[in-house]
């Protein structure tokens, strides 16, 4: 990388299951709050990268009407149509190239206004997969969950433990959409069955929300804030789409991304990282993610969880914010992970703050069964 890039400011709209605020208003108030709170002028922003998806928005070229509320008017604007973490990645590359000093990234979606599972089913090959009417986001993930559980003799209780951890963490995060201060494995296993073995509390909630992040070159970052968070490592990769050809018992593309990101950040072992914010869209995925990140051997993710290592006060806290099971505003989710990781590093996470992390990891995913993954390593 030609130059170091820092994250200087962030802001999120409170994630909610249903937000009355329309899309443009949500974006405008978010960007306005971000700039005002951090005393950044619109003129100081060199490029704006939006992250949304035409299917989520129900509009072709969904950024047509969001150029104005996002502050992108007469700027070098572009739109990434993946998860927001990729938009941050792109912003980072733009700044690293030396062409820009600052970038504003805005990601949003309103899960209450469309059908996320259906939107994701359009990711499947229409000439074959989509001819099977039983396939959608959730049912495909259930195939992944079953294949993973069968490979390592896991039970629905193991998955429920993930929900218990993340949803109780979510209760400590005032900006998350779903959280329970008290939740038991039994309660999770009593929630409605969607696609066996996945139940309501093991699936992400359809969420409304948005996140905005300002990135800057090293020099500029130091001018804009006295506590920048640096991007030390980043890598993303995508595996094969067809589920019948994939190894559903592991997240190969995440494993590869993590290895590359560690190398770039000069990390020898993931235990050097103090906090992990990951995008587990379904409960079993967090176990698979911890394995792919190298925190546990293949199939040992559940053991790691049972030992308490991934708890808020554990050795390797995973999703102290509540993760995607607590709030999953698609397109903003990966950015929320980055923001939460940043908050932890600055010691600004409030009730879900972990003990003095030096390095943090943020993970984003999209595609059926986490086909595409991105890992960012952040540090002060």
């Amino acid at each position, binding site marked *: 990388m030609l130059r170091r890039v820092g994250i200087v400011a962030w802001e999120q709209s409170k994630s909610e299951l249903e937000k*009355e*605020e*329309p899309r443009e*208003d949500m974006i405008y108030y978010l960007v306005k709050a971000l700039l005002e709170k951090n005393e950044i002028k619109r003129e100081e922003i060199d490029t704006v990268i939006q992250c949304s998806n035409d299917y989520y928005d*129900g509009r072709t070229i969904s950024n047509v009407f969001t150029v104005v509320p996002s502050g992108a008017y007469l700027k070098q604007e572009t739109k990434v149509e993946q998860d927001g973490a990729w938009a941050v990645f792109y912003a980072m590359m733009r700044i690293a190239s030396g062409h820009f000093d600052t970038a504003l990234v805005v990601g949003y979606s309103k899960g209450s206004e469309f*059908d996320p*599972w*259906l939107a994701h*089913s359009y990711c499947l090959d*229409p*000439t*074959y*997969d989509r*001819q*099977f009417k*039983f*396939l*959608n*986001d*959730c*049912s495909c993930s*259930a*195939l*992944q*969950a*079953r*294949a993973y559980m*069968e*490979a390592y003799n896991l039970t629905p209780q193991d998955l429920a433990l993930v929900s218990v951890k993340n949803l109780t963490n979510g209760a400590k995060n005032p900006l998350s959409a779903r959280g329970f201060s008290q939740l038991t494995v039994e309660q999770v296993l009593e929630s*409605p*069955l*969607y*696609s*066996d*073995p*996945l139940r309501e509390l093991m699936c992400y909630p359809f969420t409304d929300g948005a996140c905005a992040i300002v990135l800057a070159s090293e020099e500029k970052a130091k001018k804009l804030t006295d506590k920048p968070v640096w991007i030390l490592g980043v890598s993303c990769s995508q595996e*094969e789409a*067809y*589920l*019948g*050809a994939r190894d*559903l018992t592991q997240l190969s593309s995440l494993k590869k991304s993590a290895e590359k990101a560690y190398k770039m950040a000069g990390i020898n072992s993931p235990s050097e990282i103090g906090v992990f914010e990951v995008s587990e869209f379904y409960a079993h995925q967090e176990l698979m993610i911890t394995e792919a990140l190298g925190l546990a051997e293949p199939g040992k993710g559940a053991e790691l969880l049972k030992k308490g290592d991934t708890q808020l006060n554990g050795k390797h806290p995973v999703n102290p914010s509540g993760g995607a099971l607590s709030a999953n505003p698609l397109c903003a989710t990966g950015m929320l992970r980055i923001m939460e990781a940043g908050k932890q590093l600055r010691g600004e996470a409030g009730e879900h703050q972990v003990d003095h992390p030096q390095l943090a990891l943020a993970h984003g995913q999209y595609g059926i069964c986490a086909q595409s993954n991105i890992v960012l390593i952040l540090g002060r």
Partner: protein
Amino acid sequence: MEEKGITQVRSIINPEYRYSVGRYLERFYQGLEAGKIWGIKCPRCGMVYVPPRWICYKCYQKMEEWIEVKDRGVLKSWSQLYVSARKNPLKEPVLFGLIQLDGADTAIYGELRDLKPEQLKVGLRLKAVWKKERKGAVSDIEYFTLEEKEA
């Protein structure tokens, strides 16, 4: 905004698409109509893809070697679906799975019938039950069920 005036509207237009399946799936669907299942083999790694496709994703090789595979194989994963993609409850839950046919290295989707979820395990032998009147579509294989023991 200052004056509250939020309007909610529902979409009413649902565009329809016509996907051309391409030469490889064309032959696959023709095969289904005739009661055959075609796969295709990578010249480099030897992987047999069912359904067939043009290119091996691992080797980036064009594939042309057609291979007929059996209509029976083993279960790789399964689930029972209770809700639609819009989260509405289904009238009848659907049991479905990924089945790797004998001779193939990839699995295909299929509904599972005359089976109880408790019976299912990875490696369970299943056979395809074909439709009487086939039209060259994925529905030509009506479902998969337990393969009876060889006599």
